C-alpha cells in the first residue's frame, strides 16, 4: 500500500515538474504561457517600459537564467546589447547560444528590411533584418509553433499536451486575427512616419506606407537638419500620422506635429508597454485601435 502511494507520489512529482522557461521580452512570455500552460513556469527578463535594445544587464536577472531549462529570445540582434553578458555569467550550459534550450524565435520569421550593406556608418543596423516582428500579430502563430516544437523536444513527456495547447491557441488566434484584420483594413493606404522602424511588419502587411523615420539612422537621436527635412517632406506628401513608441523622447514628434498638423499616435511595442495592454489580444487591439480609428 505504502509502495503504491510512494509510486504515485513520484509519478505525480515528475508529472508536475514544470519547465523553467525564461523569455527575454514580455510578449514572448505570453506566447510561452499560452502554449506551455501549466507545464511551464515563465520568467520575463526585460520590462516593457524600456527600449528593448537597451535593457540594463542587471545581475539580479542572472538567477532565473542560471536555473532555466529553456531561454526564449527574440533574436535578430535585438538582445545583443544586454543578453550575452548575462548568459555568460549565468553558467548554465542548457541555455547557452547554440544549445537545445536556447530558442531564437526570429528563425520562425521571414525577416524583412535586411540591409544590403552592413556597416556601423549606417547606424545601429541589424544585419539579419528588422527584429521588431512582434508588432504584427500574424507573427504570433509561427513563433508559438516554433516554441512548441522546441518545448516538445526538451520535454517529450508533455509533447502531446503542448500539441493540444497549440491547436487550441491556434484556433483561438486565427479567430482573433480575423477581427484584427477587419479593423486594420480600414487604414490601408495610409501614410505614416515612425520614430524608429518598429512597426514595419504590421505596416507592410496592411498596405500602410512608412514614409520616413524621425531617427536619421537607426539608433541615432534626431538631428535638427533631419527633422526639418522630414517636416518639409511630410508637408509635401500630406502625411498626417506620426507613430511614436512609448519609450523614446516625445519632444521631436510633438514639434513635428505642431509644424505639420500631423497627429502623434503612441503605439505600444510590446505587451504591457502602455496601460491596458496586459494580454496579447489587448496589446494588438490597442495598436489597431490607435492606428486605424
Amino acid at each position, binding site marked *: 500500500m505504502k509502495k503504491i502511494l510512494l509510486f504515485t507520489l513520484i509519478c505525480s512529482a515528475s508529472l508536475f515538474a514544470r519547465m523553467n522557461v525564461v523569455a527575454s521580452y514580455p510578449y514572448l512570455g505570453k506566447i510561452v504561457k499560452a502554449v506551455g500552460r501549466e507545464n511551464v513556469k515563465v520568467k520575463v527578463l526585460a*520590462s516593457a*517600459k*524600456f*527600449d528593448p535594445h*537597451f535593457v*540594463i*544587464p*542587471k*545581475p*539580479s536577472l*542572472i*538567477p532565473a537564467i*542560471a*536555473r532555466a531549462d529553456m531561454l526564449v529570445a527574440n533574436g535578430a540582434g535585438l538582445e*545583443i*546589447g*544586454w*543578453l*550575452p*553578458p548575462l548568459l*555568460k*555569467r*549565468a*553558467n*548554465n*550550459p542548457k541555455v*547557452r547560444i547554440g544549445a537545445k534550450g536556447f530558442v531564437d524565435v*526570429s*528563425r*520562425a*520569421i*521571414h*525577416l524583412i528590411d535586411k540591409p544590403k550593406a552592413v556597416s*556601423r556608418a549606417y*547606424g*545601429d543596423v541589424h544585419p539579419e533584418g528588422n527584429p521588431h516582428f512582434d508588432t504584427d500579430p500574424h507573427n504570433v*502563430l*509561427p513563433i508559438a*509553433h*516554433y516554441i*512548441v*516544437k522546441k518545448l*516538445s523536444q526538451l520535454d517529450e513527456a508533455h*509533447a*502531446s499536451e*503542448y*500539441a*493540444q495547447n*497549440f*491547436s*487550441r491557441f*491556434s*484556433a483561438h488566434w486565427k479567430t482573433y486575427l480575423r477581427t484584427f484584420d477587419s479593423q486594420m483594413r480600414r487604414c490601408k493606404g495610409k501614410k505614416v512616419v515612425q520614430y524608429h522602424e518598429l512597426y514595419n511588419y504590421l505596416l507592410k502587411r496592411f498596405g500602410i506606407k512608412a514614409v520616413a523615420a524621425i531617427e536619421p539612422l537607426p*539608433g*541615432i*537621436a534626431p538631428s535638427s537638419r533631419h527633422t526639418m527635412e522630414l517636416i518639409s517632406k511630410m508637408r509635401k506628401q500630406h502625411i498626417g500620422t506620426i507613430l511614436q513608441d512609448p*519609450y*523614446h*523622447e516625445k519632444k521631436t514628434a510633438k514639434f513635428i506635429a505642431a509644424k505639420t498638423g500631423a497627429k502623434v499616435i503612441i503605439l505600444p511595442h510590446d505587451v504591457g508597454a502602455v496601460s491596458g495592454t496586459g494580454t496579447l489580444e489587448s496589446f494588438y487591439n490597442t495598436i489597431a485601435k490607435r492606428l486605424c480609428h
Partner: protein
Amino acid sequence: MTKKIILLSMAASVSLFAQSELEEVKALLAQQIKTTQALQKRVAELEKKQQHTATHAATKSKTVKHHKHQPKPIEEEGTYTTAEDTMPSEQHTQTFDQKSFLPDIALILDGSAVGRNVDNSTYETQYIPGFSTYNAANPNEIPFNKDRGFNFNYAEISMHSTVGPYFDADAIFHLQPDEFEIEEAYITSRSMPYGLRAKLGKFRSEFGRINAIHQHAWKFTSQPLVFNALFGSEGINDAGVQLQWVLPTDTYVMAGIEAMQGSNDVSFGDTEKNNLYIGYLKSSFDIGDTSTLLAGASILHGKNEQGLNTDVYGADLTALVALSSYSSLTWQSELLYRNKTTDIGKEKQAGYYTQLTYKYNQNWQGGVRYDSLYKNLDSQPDDLDRFSAVLQYSPFEFTKFRLEYSYDRSKAFGDLADQRKNISQILLDFTIEAGAHGAHAF
C-alpha cells in the same frame, strides 16, 4: 615512318572522339528539352489541380461550419515552415572555407589632450607618500595621459572565439606606442554543471568592482586612487585560475575563488611559487522595478617581496536607478584595506573612492568622484585625496568624448622629502570601440 603513322592515327582518333562527343552532347540536349517539356506539362497540371482543390476547400469550409477541432500532433500541422526548415541544403561557401570560424575582433582606440599645472619632467617623478617611492632607475608607470599636450594612449585588439564544445577563448592585446602587452588571454569553460564556471590564463581578477573592468569602460579616465596606490597602474592582472559559482537561489549570489602567481609587486611580488589567493562573494537584488543594488566583499591573501603576508580586504556597493530607457543615476563605491607585514612590523593602509554618475540621455552623461587614502603609515600624510568631474558626449554607442577635470592632492615628486604638490589637470579624451565588440556587463 612509323612515327608519322602513329601521329596521324592519333590525330584521327582525336577528331573521331571529338565528333562522337559532339553527338553525345546533342543527344543529351535533346533529352533535356524533352524532360523540360514534360516538367512544364506537369507544372501546368498541378497548378490546375491546386486551383481546383482551393475552390473545393473554400466551398467545403462554407458548408461545414461547425467542424470539431481534433488536436493533431504538431508534426502534421506543417503550415508554418520555419526559416530553419527551409534552409538551403546546398552549401554556397568554398570548400574548406573557414571564414565562419573567425573570431570576433574589436579595435579600441584611446587618445587625449592634456593641460596640467606640472611640467612633464616633474610629473614623471610622481609617487604617493607612504604607498610608493620614486626611483630614478625604475620610475612609476604612468600608462595613460602622461604628457601635457597630445597623448595617444593605446590601441587595443580584443578577440573572442569559441574553441569547441567545452571552452571559449578571449585575448586582449594592449598596444602602446612602444609596447606590446598581452593584457589578458584566457579560456573559459562553457559546459560545467551546477552553475560553475572556470577560467584559466592571464586575466584581470574579479576582486572588488572596478579591477576586472578595462579602462575604456570606466566612467572616469583615471584609475581610482586606492587601486593605484595598492596595486599599481595594472591592478590585479596575473596568470592564474578562477572558479565561480552562481548559487541556485532566487537572489543573485556569486562566489568566486582565484589562485594567481602574485607578480603584482606593489602589494605582493613573491613569485617563487603561486602565492596569491583571492576570494569574493557578490550579491545583487532589485528594489522595485527600476532600482538595483550590487554589493560585494572580497579578500586577497598573498606574499610580498619580503616573503611575508599581505592581506587586502575590499567592500563594494553599486546602486543604480533607471529613470528611463536612456537615463539613469549610478552610485558606485569601493573601500580597500591593506594589512602588509614587513620586517619592521605591520603596515595598515586604507582608502576608498565614491562616484556618482548621471546619464542624461543616449548622448550625454556626467559624473563626480571623490578618492581618498584616509589611512596611512604613522609617519606619512593621511590627507591624500583627489576630486574628479567628468562630462561625456557619445554621438554613437561606440564613441566617447570625455572632458575631465581632476584636482589631485595625493602626489609627491622627485626623491626629496616633502615635495608634495597638488596637480590640477584638464583632459579631453576620445575612446572608440570598432568591430565586433561584445556588450559590457553591468
